[in-house]
């Protein structure tokens, strides 16, 4: 309960200071040089130009409704997060900065760790944008990157995700972890091309047991806070690098794209045969997507060929090559009620080899993993209330995961939220079911600055 007390104390400090939001804003506003541009004119009321710093204070508290694996805390989430963001224009350059300052007595870990986040300071944006020619845009530095068509299903988007945040009930923006990369975009009449180079492999902020417990097939046991996964992450600059590329264009009302990725599995997908440490095998992905209007809604489809490390087929310690496919449809089915449905396939490509290589007694996966998702989002009370639910269900694994959330904007500055994450399934080893012990409900309050 130490977390509760700490959070309550911190909350009063935060609310006390944030209540005088003007004072908070004034503290971070700095007079800039040119008063003529960007005057903040609201009904003739003029303020001098300021360096505009904005962000929020987000306080979240969640409890575990599942069983705690040895060492796990009953409190799944307890944190106060301050995010500050600013955009600065200097000549033809745009500089973006955003950082999170996190007080998290549940993690109780404050050393800055740029790769895994969850520490006291988590810079999310430190980048510069510029256009060296009128058909080229560059963005260099720490950034958030997203492409592809799936709704919470990513085939060709191999930019780092933060699964801990997603499963624990942080705001959905934290599903995307920042990436240290250079992005070059080329725009032509018939085709646009993005190339993203990440000089040092940026893994997902994956489930390793410290915050979210999981089932370890190798040891046939759940692993949690006191027994987290040990892993070797490819870590050499310019050697363990990643390249992601996309070529896209519109054809009529449809958007089409081709994708390429060369790097590593983003979450552990292998094991060191000797030391037993989790590894990130090599991975290349070739994919395509399509998205456009259909029958009053939006339809999308995406496919990807996951070409795993060269010896994956015969090595039981390396995840197989896969074919992935996704199709989805979204439509507003009643006033301010939107439904979306997706089907996802993950098919092992060298299944016979996989079976032959599997040690006797090891858990055997089916060749095809099917997944269906359903999202419902309802807006009400002048769009100030949002009710949403997202359900993943795998008919082949017979497991699933429901996310639900209600959020209400009390004012433009203040939002309250409640939600939960519920994993279900009968077996220990299937993907969603292994997280059953982490079922949680949470509440949050966010004040915009």
């Amino acid at each position: 309960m130490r977390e509760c007390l700490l959070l309550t104390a911190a909350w009063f400090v935060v609310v006390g200071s944030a209540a005088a939001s003007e004072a908070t804003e004034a503290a971070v506003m700095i007079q800039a040089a040119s008063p003529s541009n960007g005057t903040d004119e609201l009904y003739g009321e003029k303020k001098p130009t300021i360096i505009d710093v904005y962000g929020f204070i987000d306080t979240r508290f969640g409890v575990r409704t599942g069983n705690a694996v040895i060492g796990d805390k009953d409190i799944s989430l307890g944190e106060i997060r301050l995010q500050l963001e600013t955009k600065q224009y200097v000549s033809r350059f745009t500089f973006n900065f955003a950082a999170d300052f996190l007080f998290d007595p549940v993690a109780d870990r404050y050393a800055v760790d740029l790769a895994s986040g969850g520490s006291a300071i988590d810079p999310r944006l430190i980048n510069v944008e510029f256009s060296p020619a009128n058909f080229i845009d560059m963005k260099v530095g720490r950034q958030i990157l997203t492409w592809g068509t799936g709704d919470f299903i990513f085939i060709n988007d191999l930019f780092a995700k933060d699964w801990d945040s997603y499963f624990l009930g942080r705001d959905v923006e934290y599903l995307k972890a920042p990436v240290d990369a250079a992005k070059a975009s080329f725009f032509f009449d018939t085709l646009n091309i993005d190339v993203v180079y990440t000089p040092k492999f940026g893994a997902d902020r994956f489930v390793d047991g410290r915050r979210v417990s999981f089932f370890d097939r190798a040891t046939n046991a759940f692993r949690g806070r006191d027994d987290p996964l040990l892993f070797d992450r490819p870590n050499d600059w310019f050697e363990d690098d990643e390249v992601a590329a996309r070529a896209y264009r519109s054809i009529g009302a449809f958007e089409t794209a081709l994708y390429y990725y060369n790097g590593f599995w983003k979450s552990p997908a292998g094991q060191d045969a000797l030391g037993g440490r989790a590894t990130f095998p090599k991975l290349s992905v070739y994919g395509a997507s399509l998205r456009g209007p259909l029958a009053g809604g939006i339809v999308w489809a995406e496919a990807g060929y996951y070409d795993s490390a060269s010896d994956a087929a015969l090595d039981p310690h390396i995840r197989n090559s896969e074919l992935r496919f996704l199709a989805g449809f979204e439509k507003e089915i009643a006033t301010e009620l939107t439904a979306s449905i997706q089907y996802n396939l993950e098919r092992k490509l060298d299944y016979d080899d996989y079976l032959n290589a599997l040690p006797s007694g090891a858990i055997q996966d089916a060749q095809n993993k099917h997944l269906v998702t359903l999202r419902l989002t309802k807006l009400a009370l002048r769009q100030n209330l949002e009710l949403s639910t997202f359900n993943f269900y795998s008919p082949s694994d017979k497991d699933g995961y429901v996310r639900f959330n209600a959020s209400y904007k009390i004012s433009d500055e203040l939002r309250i939220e409640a939600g939960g994450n519920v994993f279900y399934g009968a077996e220990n080893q299937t993907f969603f079911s292994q997280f059953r012990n982490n079922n949680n409900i949470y509440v949050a309050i966010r004040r915009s600055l």
Partner: protein
Amino acid sequence: MKYYFLIAFVLLSFPISTAHAQAPSAMDIVVKAVEAMNYAGGDVKARIDMRIIDSHGRERIRQMTMLRRNETSGYGPQKYYVLFSRPSDVKEMVFMAWKNTDRADDRWLYLPALDLVKRIAASDERTSFVGSHFFYEDVSGRNIDEDHHEFIEETDEYYVIKSTPKTPGDVEFTNYTSWVDKTTYLPIRIEYTGQRGEVYRTFSVQTVEVIQNHPTIIDVQMEDTAMGGKTVLHYSAVKYSIGIKENVFSERFLRRPPREYLR
């Protein structure tokens, strides 16, 4: 006797013929009104301050900069780009719409925190735009072929037009009446009539200014007694014919707002 007929004919036909000369058909007025309100200048940039006031008087603010470009001269397809600046939880968010006259509009939303370009379905045009009392359709203009337009009367200042939907099941009103200014052709007041014959929704213009020879709505509000409350819009920094390129309305500029036009 012939003269009587002639005089009677002249007397009878005179007001009719002048009415023909002065008052164009209902459809002509509607086209001119839509063009005056939503098509002036080929392209335009404007800053919009929106105050959403609920039935208890509580106020929410939305602040945005809009770019609009006509794809043809006069009534036809258009492209809209809206960059939000307030409140801070929607800052840097972009809404983009391609208004089509032959099929449903194409719409996108860019969420900067996720770097996500989301395509959104345009199934219901009569859904609130960003929680305001204005619908998507009020922002970009209702497709004129969706209604029958009927000339009601001509006053000293206005042409009065009654419009009735061709497919009544698609909309919540039974008809609406527009007061179109005879000199500027801007609709100054629009009253929406509900199922019980009551006026429940009123669009009214408070201020018009002439900017670069285009009469321009500066202050306008939408009041809705069914929902309660109203939304007040104030346009500022309006600039026409700034030469916005077509490619501004693309994924490239969703991810990177085109500062050269937005400043």
